[in-house]
């Protein structure tokens, strides 16, 4: 009653080459633990992270952990639908996974856009930074430049194992999404994304929060 909470549901993709640690990052972020023993992801796995963003805002992140094998590329169109943000993950110990980042970014941008047609916010994660690094990631200014050029919201050196920077990266992505929301909804109060994603779901529990989604 006193403070009506606004609630957002965001679909976030986690993509990148096979074995770069996508699942590990998600498990660390959502369940606060790390294991060497994750199974290979086949198709897609799901996770939910609830953020108490500020006293008036709850954010639910629906994380889509997508299998890394390039072969599955054709299937990902379905998975990308209605996503509002993405992480692209590469493995700092394998330069080839960094080389593939561009490909993933292009793939993402070609398959999903914001309502105004611009690319969805995407943060680059240089994972396994607790280990010996290889390639451009050793040169942060160059990485900044690279991200600017390729249209990334930003980049973070992360380690799911040592819990480095994962919260921070998520925070950066969510901030950007919120900002986009604000800009977009200056002239439009309806948010098709969230309604489509949440047709009958959580709104039941906390009644007409639907309108608050629209900010």
């Amino acid at each position, binding site marked *: 009653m006193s403070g009506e909470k606004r609630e957002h549901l965001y679909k976030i993709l986690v993509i990148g080459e*096979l*074995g770069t640690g996508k699942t590990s990052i998600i498990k660390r972020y959502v369940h606060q633990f790390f294991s*060497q*023993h*994750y*199974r*290979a*992801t*086949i*198709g*897609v*796995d*799901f*996770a*939910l992270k609830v953020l108490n963003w500020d006293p008036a805002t709850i954010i639910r992140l*629906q994380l889509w952990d997508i*299998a*890394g*094998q*390039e*072969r*599955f590329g*054709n*299937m990902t169109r*379905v998975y990308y639908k209605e996503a509002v943000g993405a992480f692209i993950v590469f493995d700092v110990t394998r330069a*080839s996974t960094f080389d593939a980042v561009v490909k993933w970014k292009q793939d993402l941008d070609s398959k999903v856009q914001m309502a105004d047609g611009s690319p969805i916010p995407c943060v680059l994660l240089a994972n396994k930074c607790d280990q010996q690094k290889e390639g451009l990631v050793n040169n942060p200014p160059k990485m900044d430049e690279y991200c600017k050029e390729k249209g990334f919201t930003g980049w973070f050196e992360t380690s799911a194992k040592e819990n480095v920077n994962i919260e921070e990266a998520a925070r950066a992505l969510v901030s950007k999404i919120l900002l986009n929301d604000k800009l977009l909804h200056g002239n439009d109060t309806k948010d098709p994304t969230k309604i*489509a*994603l*949440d*047709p*009958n*779901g*959580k709104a039941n529990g906390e009644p007409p929060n639907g309108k608050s989604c629209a900010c």
Partner: protein
Amino acid sequence: MMIQSRCSTETSCDNEKPNLQDVSECSNANSSFSCSVTNNSKSVPLNELLEKIPLAYSPLTKQLHILYPKQEASEKVVDGFESLKSRENINSSNNYLNSDEQLEDEMSNASTQEMVVSHCEGDGSSLSSETSHQLEEGLVDDSNKRKKKGIGSFFSRGVFLWKNRDSPASSAATYTSSPGWKFFSKSVFDHSLSSVCPNDEEIATASSVSPLGSPTSLRSSASSSKRYEDVIASSSALILHDRPANLPAKSVDEEAKHKQEYEQMVEAAKKRERQEARIKKKQMQQQIKTEERLAHATKIWLTDILPKWSSVMSSRKIQNLWWQGIPPCVRGKVWLLAIGNELNVTPELYEICVTRAHELLKTVSNTTSCDSGTEIDNPDRQASVELIQLDISRTFPQLCIFQKGGPYYDILHSLLGAYACYRPDIGYVQGMSFLAAILILNMEETEAFVCFANLLNRPCHMAFFRLDQAMMQAYYSVFEQLMADNLPKIHCHFLKSHLSPDLYLLDWIYTVFAKAMPLDVACRVWDVFLRDGEEFLFRTALGVLHLYQELLLGFDFLVGAQFLTKLPEDLNADNLFLSIQGIRMQRYSDLLTMYRSTCVASSGSYCSTTNSSGTNTPIELN
């Protein structure tokens, strides 16, 4: 007498010196025991009393256990008993202890390992020694086929037990309430053995090591362990202390009230433990029943079915037996026959492919940037080989046998590499590692490859592993239609919550449920999948949805999707199969024909798919 002294040495290993309160509490756990304790407690000093009580602290469970005199129960165990006696003599002469000081000495001296061994002397040592023996051999000597088989059957047999241990139902407390150190305990030993066919060479080796080798003695010791059910002496050390003297005394009322509350709590705890013990006993009986059924089935499979496979396999009786699950020790043989070898894959072909895969791997690791390869499909194949390496250790990681350095790492690697060379047009696709692993767990390497190649050549898997979108869509559509027929409520709910079949069915089909289900249940699904063909994949999928219908109807998109990609650990095979039995699939082939033609018409990619799956093109052999 002897037993008591044995136990006393074990008590001495206990680093939590139990106080009197614990003791009296545990004495209640078993009435026959309690009288001896109370008698003693009047005349005997505390530390002596403690030594007489067969309590042992298990470092695994962090609980005190009462040890019951199992050996007495069966005269067949006399051998073990004798050896125990001799050991006891050594023990008592060396370190039979009386004072607290010495007790602590002993505690620091006794290594955990020694403790375990001495505890298992009479009943389980044969397992512990053999297991570690096998593991070592498996790890050290990979080239020895026979030993690999040994370890294989050990693991596949163990599946049941692991599941029991992992299942949430058997929480820490119940799991530990069986004799002492469970891994080496008798009950485990019995289960694993009785699930094996009697003429398996495994048994032969086991009995040569074991002092209680003959099957009869095993049976009797099983029953003895039932009679002397171990009970947790103290799981939570709840002790009512007197009020410290420096504080004002409680009022009489208060005192009485506290005492009453205390007794209620203790009583509740005991009740819970009794209940857990009852549940455990029931599970155990269930388990024994299952094992007996399996042993019986094994005999039938070995004597009546396998020798005259082609003539009897389609009989109703056999089909029924098959539905109930193939006993783990004949599973590999049956699968091999059921899958067949339509492609005529020979061991020689496999050797050639393995060699190629290894060569390829060498060039990949030597020159990572040789994109100007000689063959056109080289870069892709290289990628395949690299991906395999990344995925192997992520295949059933909980079994810890496919990791680098694990006994099955090389086999899985070779098999998948060989397939990528055998079918470069398909290469390696994620999901294959799970299929190959399941086969490897149940049969020899070469056999597994033959099965793997033939299995993947079936139309449904071929479509999925070639990522033929049109055909995949056709299968999804068939599934949705069957779901609408069989489970209209779920179908409607999933439609509303946008939970489309591709999100969960993909994983199920790629791995034939190996990833989503507990391993033992997955194997049973495989049994019938190999009997009934791809149709059974969809039938099982619907069976799963039916089994969890009520839950699923309450889930939103995300919870539902999470649930379906990782089914509960306690998924019960019998319940699942009951559920599956209710699913009607009559329209399957008609629907498939219909959707295939519509999907193909709209995309036109069909021809390339099924033609090649029919007329297989193995690699050029030079």
